[in-house]
């Protein structure tokens, strides 16, 4: 009996149980849940090139991502996910929004561009003669665009009680010059290709400010809500390329929550049965394996929350499968130990030899599965990717816990000499001799 070793063994046990019991709830709350677990929706946009934009460039794609980020932020969604996906040489942007809100509104804000263009006037011509004092739009004379706006557009009401959008131009001088040049003449404001106003400028504006007013009825009526949405679109700036929505997927939150709860309970029940199975078959060694499994679960959760991995239902299933692989590593080792005991070795040398001989099989077996996970990550997207990440993380952590930790604990326990009968390692009474 060596108390020092036994006490260090007990210390490890206490640390594992203490840490898990103390902080796992907090860790669990730090894990981000996928849309299938907490509800929300997933939008996939294709970045399209048009003759006017030219081919999609790397820089342009970054600009799109930035613009989309700004737009999503303006929705006020907590922790959105915006990813660039390159599928078959095409650039796609995946936006995942968790929670429940107006999907239609979100789609509009993300995908649509509020294109503001202000054109200058030209004299109206009737049968070859100019009509003095009357003007029409001169589309060849683009004065300002949405790009010239500061992103502080907001809804307000003017003195007449009309709903308007307050705008500020970045370059005050430019706007002052425009108002000076076209004083007492109209300028034409187009929104998304439609004429919004053709207001006559009645004074030089030097503070860079202006107001947009619009129709009071019809589909594009300037309701307070419309003005607010429009302000957001204007603030987000123009997208360098048009985005086309190619796929959308929405999950009701209560549906996801019910699935999550059921899966959690099933997982818990499975783990308890596996724990009992290991104790029944491998006794003390099984108990050590179970403790290593607890550490495995704890570290996996910690990694998920630390790496901000999004946990989906299939990822959850991969974790449970990872538990199976971690158990396998222990079973391989314990069966080896049993073999060694049957070959007539003492418990101590059997544990040492068994661990050593099991190592190669465990490494090779885990490496091949890890390779499969890597290929999944490389080639898959969405669900498959989440699954692959969960699988790879669980393999690495199972190598650390089910192999290194479990092995250290088993060796400490064995060397403490607290038990001598092979029964404690799941070897049957008569088994030691054959």
């Amino acid at each position, binding site marked *: 009996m060596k108390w020092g070793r036994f006490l260090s063994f007990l210390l490890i046990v206490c640390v594992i149980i203490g840490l898990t019991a103390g902080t796992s709830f907090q860790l669990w709350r730090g894990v981000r849940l996928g849309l299938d677990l907490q509800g929300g929706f997933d939008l996939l946009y294709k970045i399209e090139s048009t003759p006017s934009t030219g081919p999609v460039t790397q820089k342009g794609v970054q600009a799109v991502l930035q613009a989309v980020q700004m737009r999503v932020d303006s929705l006020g969604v907590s922790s959105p996910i915006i990813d660039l996906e390159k599928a078959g040489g095409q650039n796609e942007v995946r936006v995942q929004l968790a929670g429940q809100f107006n999907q239609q509104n979100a789609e509009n804000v993300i995908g649509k561009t509020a294109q503001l263009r202000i054109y200058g006037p030209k004299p109206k011509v009737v049968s070859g003669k100019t009509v003095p004092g009357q003007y029409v739009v001169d589309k060849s004379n683009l004065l300002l665009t949405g790009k010239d706006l500061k992103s502080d557009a907001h809804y307000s009401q003017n003195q007449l009680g009309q709903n308007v959008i307050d705008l500020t131009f970045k370059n005050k001088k430019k706007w002052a010059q425009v108002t000076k040049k076209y004083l007492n003449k109209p300028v034409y404001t187009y929104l998304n290709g439609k004429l919004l106003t053709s207001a006559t400028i009645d004074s030089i504006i030097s503070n860079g400010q202006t107001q947009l007013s619009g129709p009071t009825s019809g589909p594009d009526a300037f309701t307070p809500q419309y003005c607010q949405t429009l302000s957001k679109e204007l603030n987000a700036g123009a997208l360098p390329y048009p985005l086309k929505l190619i796929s959308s997927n929405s999950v009701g939150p209560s*549906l996801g929550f019910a699935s999550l709860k059921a899966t959690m309970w099933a997982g818990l029940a499975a783990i308890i049965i*596996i724990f009992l199975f290991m104790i029944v078959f491998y006794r003390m060694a099984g108990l050590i394996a179970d403790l290593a499994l607890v550490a495995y679960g704890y570290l996996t959760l910690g990694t998920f929350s630390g790496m901000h991995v999004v946990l989906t239902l*299939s990822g959850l*299933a991969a974790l449970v499968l990872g538990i199976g692989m971690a158990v396998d590593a222990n079973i391989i080792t314990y069966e080896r130990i049993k073999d060694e005991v049957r070959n007539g070795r003492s418990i101590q040398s059997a544990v040492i030899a068994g661990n050593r001989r099991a190592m190669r099989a465990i490494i090779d077996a885990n490496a091949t599965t890890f390779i499969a996970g890597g290929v999944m990550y490389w*080639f898959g997207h969405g669900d498959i990717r989440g*699954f692959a990440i969960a699988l790879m993380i669980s393999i690495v952590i199972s190598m650390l816990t089910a192999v290194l930790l479990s092995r250290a604990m088993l060796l400490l326990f064995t060397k403490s000499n607290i038990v001598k009968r092979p029964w404690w390692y799941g070897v049957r009474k008569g088994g030691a001799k054959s």
Partner: protein
Amino acid sequence: MKKRFDIIRHRMWFFILSGTITVAGLVVFLTMGFNLGTDFVAGSRVQLTLNQTVNTSKVRQMLDAAQLSVGPNAITVAGTKRHTAVIRFSTVLTQSQLAKVQQLEKKTFHSTKYSSETVSPIVAQTTSKKAVWAVLLASLFIVVYVSIRFEYRFAVAAIVALLHDAFIVMSVFALLRLPIDLPFVAAVLTIVGYSVNDTIVIFDRIRENQGIAKPRTFGELERMVDKSLWQTMSRSINTVITVLIAAVMLYFFGGESIHDFTFALIVGLVSGAYSSIFIASPIWVVWKGKQMKDGRKDKLTPEQQTS
């Protein structure tokens, strides 16, 4: 040692069994095809969770009111309480159509648990291509790794076993008309990983025993592999039992959305354990045995070989 069932000696039976299943699977593929889910076929899928048992004709009436006509098999009922209606549209629904369905659902069934999934052809095509490539490439990478760590015969035998398992799972899904979707692909890839994991542990023991026993004849080789199989048998069984416990629990009590996923896992796990023992190792024996000259003669007098 007790007299044990000689797995390698009876390999023909296992080859015949797996061959029959493979041929049956092929027939099923060719005659029935797959029931491809929305991940692979463009269209929309709407899932309604009602607070009552689903009445299919009522759902159909509701869709008629929305002027969305669906085929005779488009509405399926799911869930333990049969509260979930899954409607499959072969066309991609527009946002306003989806909104209408949601609105009607609220009105007809007073339920708000609604989810929809829409996939356009472009995404579906890239997804299915990616899935096939992932399986083939994973196999290729595994072959390379196993060839380096073991030898190429082991690698090929392991790949035959894993393709066998993936094939059986696909056959079962085709036969039972279960949907092939992205979670299914993840399941098949897991099975591929598990199958090879399981096979490698057994091969590791064969590799080790091969170094000790150094078989020179076909008979010796057969005995050595058979012994290796039985040495790893309790590990093979215990491992598959523990993983099956998890899969079965998730199948019966886990969330609705992973039901088919876990079913695929269960079929694949059983097949994976079977193929590692009864297919992969015998294939390696037959192939490796070709090297040995006096194999035939030796095989007739196995009693001379004592292990």
